[in-house]
């Protein structure tokens, strides 16, 4: 699957299918600091992302 990340902007490819919770683990990210978006939809941690999917992991923490 293709994963789009921000701060800095980059794309990584990881093996699917995978549960959202495991995507977080593999990328060593804490779920509380991000949202996972597929298309226009938000995914909860128990959902599965297929290998052909593109998702965005969007940071929600701002520095101000």
């Amino acid at each position, binding site marked *: 699957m293709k994963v789009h990340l*921000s*701060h800095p902007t980059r794309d990584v490819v990881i093996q699917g299918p995978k549960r959202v919770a495991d995507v977080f683990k593999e990328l060593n990210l*804490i*779920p*509380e*600091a*991000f*949202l996972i*978006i597929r298309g*226009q*939809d*938000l*995914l*909860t*941690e*128990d*959902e599965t992302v297929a290998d052909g999917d593109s998702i965005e992991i*969007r*940071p*929600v*923490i*701002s*520095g*101000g």
Partner: protein
Amino acid sequence: MRCRKCPKRAVLGLPRHNTAFCGGCLTEFVRSQVQRAIKAQQMFSPDDRVLVAVSGGKDSLTLWEILLKLGYRADALYVDLGIPGYSSRSKEKVEQFAKVVAEPCGSQLTIHTVEEDAGAGIKELANLIKRPTCSACGTIKRYQFNRVAWQNHYDVMATGHNLDDEAARLLGNVLQWQEEYLQKQSPTLPASIEGFAKKVKPLYRMTEREIAAYAVVNRIDYLVEECPMAKGAKMLVYKDALNRLEAESPGTKQRFYWGFLDRQEKSSSVAPSMTQIDQTTLQPCTVCSQPTTAGTCSFCRMMARAKTTVK
């Protein structure tokens, strides 16, 4: 995961409330929490005119949207800091939101451009007076929001600070024992003295993640990109630490910050109020007459210094 309120698919789990919501129920939940914050902290009433400080980021645009959806009379002020690239992109988001969402509700956007007023953007200005950009920026934003609120007779000024912001700030203040700042951490600060607008933070019950989810669900087109000056900010370290604690023990952030507010409320009968402190320590600035503890306020001193350095 299913929504706990209806049969739909959940879009967000909220471990701190041990629940999960679909888009519609999340929207309802967030709006009701904001309404509850406004009432509980006596922020404003439907007749009051509210000035929202907007930056183009998720918190401030979401706040503006929610206030309009709840039927409040909310206008907004955007301060264009003149940061190359970032400022024009954030301004575009704000103007777009104003046009599509706010103006149809009869709400208006005011833009203050630092460069027009001070002759330079925030970065050059900070360099000129040898102060960190964020500290110069803070002074300018505080000053301009207060000035616009006061001069245009707004009853109250609202900012998009959320639970994460306030918990992180509290952690920072407690770690350094900056007790004098603790008084200022209430979600409602009174218009303690002539020239100071009342300030409120209606999102203090919501986490950043819940707000971002609300923005995505309600198609609020905000700027995901951060201000380039924010890199390495101390706040991010505190927020990260709190989120790690939150993951281990959901509800940590709210227990920390709301618990502080409860204690503060209980002790308020003993300690002198902020209004009393302000009234004894503040006087009008000799240049602009905004209240200040010094003879000339920090904004006017900054501007004076910038002008002499330019010559």
